[in-house]
């Protein structure tokens, strides 16, 4: 059982404070004035050297946001967020657009090395066998480095910070930005539209299979800042891209806000695979500190035979509020959602997906595995709907919850709406704890109780782990063991 032993050993290595990404990088930063006003929006826009139309778009969103109220339907509970006391922009000094990696502050490179994210291309290239991943590293409000840009450019792929895309490819940004998640979509998305600072932009041209995995690594460092990233991925006809996203933050006693928007557009025959390993600081065992992760993610299968697949491993954040969704507009398009959401300590997770069937013969599949331990609350909330014209829509949903401990909660809130008789929706959900029989079986085969639980949990989430790219799957498996440390036995 080498894999199991490895995970258990790994858990042991970690000391009481399990969160190993909790360090702070001491780096000077440039911040916007505290609070939020039209001036803040103008300041951010000016910092990014944005054209007038972009500023107008932001201001529209800002004015609209002022008229909106925070949603309260999710099963999460938190004190009011002091929007007027946050810093909406923070950037490491002297990184206003490093031309090459050599220009990047060595302190930042060290930070990312510590996080296990190599930003130095040479090292990567040396290992011939190694699979290469292009990385866009976002530190607080700005993108500090994007690797492999040259090679990607040769393939016609655009992979750059979104602020650069606004300047260099305004026609694409204008056409697609806000076309999946409109600026007026919801409270947090509207806030993001007003103050988003950075994030990744990806365009895969017609018929291109992206030569490597693309990845963005988000890091919140500065105190009292909110991170508002914006990601836009466009897969043109017949193209394919696999995109990974990772995130960490320092351990701090106060809560920090992360309100991101991710938009995916898949045109005819295109496929986007979007994987997330979310490991924001979850707060300590008593629920102090941690990130509020309020994210709007949505993919639009705009063309025929398009496919969008979301895979997420959610282990971090004090509060997770996110529903990566698929709008299945094109005929024969397909949406998939694979999720592992693990909550421990005082974490609160309210996550799920929406599959909106609009086109004919559209199919979707939802596999959600929730594990709650400690005193956490873990909710799956999902919608599957078929429009009157979505003939032959098919959905299969499976959400399973595993409870570890007596004080946690696991909830399932699925909505099924079928407006056509040709739709076939199937939904099943179960909630249980690790059965004593299973544990006994493993133990009488010579595994320790911890190993037995690790094995059973790994089996429980296997369906989802299989969907992750290789390196991520290994990492995610370890992360799961670490997240559950202290809850077993």
């Amino acid at each position, binding site marked *: 059982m080498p894999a199991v032993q490895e995970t258990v050993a790994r858990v042991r290595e970690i000391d009481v404070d399990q969160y190993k990404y909790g360090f702070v990088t001491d780096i000077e930063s440039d911040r916007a004035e505290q609070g939020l006003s039209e001036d803040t929006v103008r300041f951010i826009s000016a910092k990014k050297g944005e054209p007038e139309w972009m500023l107008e778009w932001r201001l529209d969103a800002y004015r609209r946001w*002022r*008229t*909106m*109220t925070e949603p309260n*339907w999710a099963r999460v509970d938190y004190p009011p967020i002091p929007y007027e006391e946050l810093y909406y922009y923070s950037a490491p000094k002297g990184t206003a657009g490093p031309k090459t990696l050599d220009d990047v502050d060595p302190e930042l490179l060290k930070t990312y090395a510590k996080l296990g994210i190599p930003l130095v291309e040479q090292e990567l290239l040396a290992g011939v066998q190694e699979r290469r991943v292009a990385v866009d590293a976002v530190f607080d409000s700005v993108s500090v480095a994007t690797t492999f840009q040259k090679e990607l450019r040769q393939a016609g792929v655009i992979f750059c910070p979104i602020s650069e895309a606004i300047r260099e490819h305004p026609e694409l940004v204008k056409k697609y930005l806000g076309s999946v998640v409109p600026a007026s979509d919801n409270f947090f998305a509207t806030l993001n539209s007003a103050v988003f600072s950075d994030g990744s932009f990806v365009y895969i041209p017609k018929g291109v299979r992206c030569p490597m995995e693309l990845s963005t690594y988000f890091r919140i460092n500065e105190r009292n800042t909110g991170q508002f990233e914006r990601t836009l991925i466009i897969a043109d006809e017949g193209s394919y891209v696999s995109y990974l996203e990772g995130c960490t933050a320092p351990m701090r006693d106060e809560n920090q806000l992360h309100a991101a928007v991710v938009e995916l557009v898949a045109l005819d025959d295109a496929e986007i695979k979007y994987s997330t390993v979310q490991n924001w600081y979850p707060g300590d065992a008593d629920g102090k500190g941690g990130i509020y992760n309020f994210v709007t993610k949505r993919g639009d299968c705009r063309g025929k035979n398009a496919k969008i697949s979301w895979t997420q491993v959610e282990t971090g954040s004090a509060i997770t509020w996110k529903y990566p969704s698929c709008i299945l507009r094109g005929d024969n398009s397909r949406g998939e959602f694979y999720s592992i959401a693990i909550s421990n300590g005082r974490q609160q997770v309210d996550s799920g997906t929406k599959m909106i069937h609009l086109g004919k013969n559209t199919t979707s599949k939802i596999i959600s595995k929730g594990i709650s331990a400690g005193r956490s609350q873990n909710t799956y909330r999902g919608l599957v709907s078929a429009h*009157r014209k979505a003939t032959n829509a098919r959905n299969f949903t499976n959400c399973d*919850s595993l*409870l*570890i*401990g*007596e*004080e*946690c*909660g*696991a*909830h*399932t*809130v*699925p*909505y*099924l*709406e*079928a*407006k*056509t*008789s*040709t*739709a*076939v*929706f*199937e*939904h*099943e*959900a*179960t*909630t*249980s*704890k690790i059965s004593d029989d299973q544990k006994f079986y493993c133990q009488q085969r010579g595994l320790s109780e911890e190993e037995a639980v690790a094995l059973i949990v790994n089996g429980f989430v296997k369906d989802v782990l299989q969907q992750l790219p290789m390196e991520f799957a290994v990492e995610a498996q370890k992360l799961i063991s670490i997240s559950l440390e202290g809850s077993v036995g």
Partner: protein
Amino acid sequence: MNAEVRPIRTAAETGLIDAFERARSAQAGGEAARAIREEAFSGVVARGLPNRRVEEWKYTDLRALMREAQPIAEGATEADVSAARSLLPLQEVDALRLVFVNGAFAELLSAIDAPQGVTITPFAHALQSDARAALTLAGAPQGDAAVALNTAFVTSGVTITVAAGTKVARPIHIANVQTGPGHAAYGRVLVTIGEGAEATLIESFSGDSGGHQVNSTVGLTLGDDSKATLIKLQDEGFGTLHLATLAATLGARAELKTVALTAGAAASRQQIYLGFKGAKATADLTGAGFAGARRHLDTTLVVEHDAVGCTSRETFKTALDGEARSVFQGKIVVRPGAQKTDGKMMAKALLLSEGAEADAKPELEIFADDVVCGHGATVGALDDELLFYLMSRGLPKVEAEALLVQAFVGEVLESIEIEPLREALVARSERWLVARD
């Protein structure tokens, strides 16, 4: 920006306010009752009728369904009672019978030779003796619009008490018949089954095609080791708006079984609030529903496990034709400490026509770890292959469909033990399969 925007009152809301204004001085129950009614009604006025934006009523927009408030029924004339005779279902079932025509008790149609250990008294008596107990539907959310409206207006109904250890052999049939021009009828049935007692209740709702508004509440309390079966036939006229709430609490080792057949009404909503208060009780809630044309059929239930080792099963099946719409909202809640809970909920909707719509929201809310809970929901059309198989054996399409639908809901109706009752409900469902109305 949290100021709530008060929408303009609809005709129905204004009508209800007028009706309450007129009714309250004449209502029985004295000062205590008046205060409870005022409180319930003012809640409805403040919030307005529930609409799409109220989560519990998301799929059943009462504000849109209830165009106007019908006047409160003013009892039944002799003509009404004789008209009701032909509208009274399940007469072939041997039972104690309590018949309410337009909300008023019709002695002429009833048979109330209550056996030893069974006490049946008018609801008005309960109002006089303990208004608070009579007007608080224990176990249900008092602020829910259907419950609150019932509390504000209800004057008729019955209280049934089965003494401890009494096993009532004959079922007790409570029939509600609406006849004449459109009116509103509010009724409340309060049933207490004593420790170790057993009883079977039948509820029926029927009526002519007038635009009636029926709002019924049933409060059911099961003592330790008791056993109850509740069978409901909702066969209202197609102009009726039917709102019904069942609130049940179960003592230790109690057993409850409910079977509902929903075949009538323009729009109907059955709410069930079930609470397990003692260990090792079991509940089996089942329902079958049919709707065609533009009818609307809602089943909303909340099962709360608040005791150790209880088992609940919920099985609901609907078949839809035309542009009918079915709604299923089911929630299993397991409170902290309710270990060894076993809960399974299943909702299935069969769409027989292009325009039918089914919405389902099966929820689990679990705060204890040593539990086994699951739910399933399916929405779909009849299996083409099964249909083809039957048609290849010479059955016309309609008959083949009918056979398959009959099998689909069979699971629910077949479990009724009283034979004439089962046959009557099966016959009713067969009638629907021919008419598909």
